[in-house]
Every structure is written in C-alpha cells, then in structure tokens.
C-alpha cells in the first residue's frame, strides 16, 4: 500500500508538470498518422517506431538532469525508497506519455487502415524498450550518456529488422527482455545517483 502510494504520488506530480509535453507528443503523433503514406505497411511501421522512439527519448531525457525536476528530485531522493522503487515510478512517466502518443497515432491511422495487432504490439514494446534505455542516459554524463542514447535508438531499429527478417513475436519478446534489463539498470543507477 505504502509503495503503491509513493509510486502514484511520484507519477502524478511528474505528469502534472509534463502535461504540455504530453499534449505536444499526442498532437505530433496524431499529425504523423494523418500525413504518412498507407500503401506500404513496413514503411508505416518504421515511421511509427522512429517517431515514437524520438518522443520516448526526449521525454526520458527530460526526467533527470535538465533542471526541470530539481526540487522534486531532491525530495524523491531524500525519501526512504529503494532505487528500484524510484526507478519504477520515474519510468512510468515517459511510458505513460509514449502510450498516449502511440494511442493517438493508432486511432488516427485506424481511420485510413485497420490496425494490425502484431504491429501495434511491436510498436508499443519497442518504443517502451527504447524509452527505458534512454532513461539510463539521463543519470549519466559524457560518453556513457551518448552510448545509452545510441542504444535507445538502436533498440527499435533492431526490433524492426528482426520483425522483417523473422516474425514480430520474436521481436516483441526481445524488446520485452531489453526493457526489463534497462529498468533494472536504471534502478541500480538511481541507487547510486549523485544529486550534485
């Protein structure tokens, strides 16, 4: 009960501050769905993956280190919470924003073409994985930060290639594994996080 209350409090506080970003992400994804072509399913999937991942990376990087949440971060850091609890709560925020953005994309695209369930699942899981990897970049600086951002970009790209070469199911499973590892990494990084 206590842990879930802390998670809800952190997510609510951060989402309230991010509501403009949320609206912008939703509008951008809806616009992409409106202007993109519908005659090539793979091109459509790639476009959604690229756009969703870019939004996920941007929102993930805004969560830490940009000074926007400085006071909130200090308050969270001084609370008696384990790194993994803090990581789960913080990771939920960009994932929720990305979910809304992707939902807007698929709702608008459904007007033109019936959505393909494996493609929707692959987009969601690959973008979550990219976003969670990008969160790890937020708690690092210098070369490791650049490396994590590059990995965040690579995850959906690899997911797309695997889906083309094999099947979307394999790609979804691989992305879920990558997301789990990234979340664990983020929790450990937060436990050692230096607010200075």
């Amino acid at each position, binding site marked *: 009960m206590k842990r879930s*209350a802390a998670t809800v409090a952190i997510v609510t506080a951060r989402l309230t501050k991010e509501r403009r970003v949320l609206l912008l992400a939703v509008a951008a994804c809806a616009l992409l769905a409106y202007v993109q072509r519908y005659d090539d399913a793979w091109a459509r999937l790639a476009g959604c993956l690229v756009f969703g991942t870019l939004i996920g990376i941007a929102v993930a990087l805004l969560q830490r280190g940009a000074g926007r949440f400085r*006071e909130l971060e*200090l*308050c969270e850091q001084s609370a*008696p919470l384990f790194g993994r609890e803090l990581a789960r709560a913080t990771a939920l925020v960009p994932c929720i924003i990305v979910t809304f953005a992707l939902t807007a994309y698929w709702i608008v695209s459904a007007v033109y073409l019936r959505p393909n369930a494996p493609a929707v699942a692959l987009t969601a899981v690959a973008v979550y994985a990219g976003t969670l990897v990008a969160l790890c970049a937020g708690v690092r600086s210098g070369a490791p930060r650049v490396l994590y951002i590059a990995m965040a970009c690579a995850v959906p790209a690899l997911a797309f290639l695997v889906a083309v070469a094999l099947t979307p199911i394999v790609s979804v499973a691989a992305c879920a594994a990558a997301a789990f590892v990234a979340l664990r990494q983020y929790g450990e990084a937060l436990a050692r996080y230096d607010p200075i």
Partner: protein
Amino acid sequence: MALLEMREAAYARGARAITTPVTLTLGEGERLAYTCDSETQAQIVALMAAGLARPASGSVFIAAFDPCIQPVQVKRIVGYVPHEAVPHDFPSFTRYVEFRAALWGLPRAESIVRARALLARLDGVHEAFAYPLAGALIAQPRLLVLDRPQAAYAQQILEASGSCAIFSTHTSEREARAFVNVHVSA
C-alpha cells in the same frame, strides 16, 4: 552513540577536490552549525550529512548506518531541507504535504494536520523555507539537516524542530552563531 559522524569526509569530482575534509560528531538532540567557505561547499556538506551525496574519501555514519550501504534506514532518520524552494512544483501546501506523506508512508490526514500545526509555529518564516521545513518535520526525523538556512528565522526554526538534532551549513560565522546561540523556550 553519535547520531551524525563525519570522519575526514570530502567530496571530489574526478581528481578535483570540491570540499575540504570534514570531521565532526553530533549527538541526539544537539545542534551544530557548520561554516563553509562557499555556497557550493555548504550545499555539498549538507547533502553528505543527509546521506544523499557520497564522499569521495572519508566516511559518514548516521545513527551508525552507512548511507552507502543502508540508504533507506538513513533516510528514515534524516530530514533534509534544501536551500532552494521546493513547493513550486505543487499547486498548494496541502498537495505538497500529501506528496511527502505518500513518499514517507505516513497517514495522509494526520500529516496534513501536523504540517499545518508546524506551519503555524513557523509564523513569519517565508513560505519558500517554511514549506520544505514543515514537510521535512512531518516524518519526525531524529536528525534535521538544513542547507544554508536564514539566520533571521533561527528562533522559529529551532522552536518548530523540537527535540531533534540539527545540523546546519552556513557561509558566514555570523549566521552560524545565530543558530548556535539561540535560546529555545520549552
């Protein structure tokens, strides 16, 4: 047993030393005002004393817990009040207290009542400092760490803090003396 013990604790970024080594001991219910050379040093020493920043050399123990190994136990003991104003992220004081109560696992209604009573005792203190202080005190910490509190509010801060030990950092001797020499009425 000392509530706060810093042994040659120094902070560094790579090879560059940012603070000089700090050695001090603070017991239960005691007050200690520590003067630093700069605002950066004062902030970092306060963060180390609260167990939020790890010293590059030396050690910090809070109620015999090592913040690097047992951070959650340490954070249950310490209340940290930063120099910057906190509640700008929240629409009201009640929302801020609810947020803190949720993070510390405290009963919501009881925390709001307690925070309002604390705020009443901090009459005259600017809300930018009174809100985070009341927020830190609702968890009834044994050790209160204040980062550069204003000397003008020393009397109200010490009265509101009750019997908990207080460690504060300052950038001038005059401000530090103001916190040590204040007589707190029972």
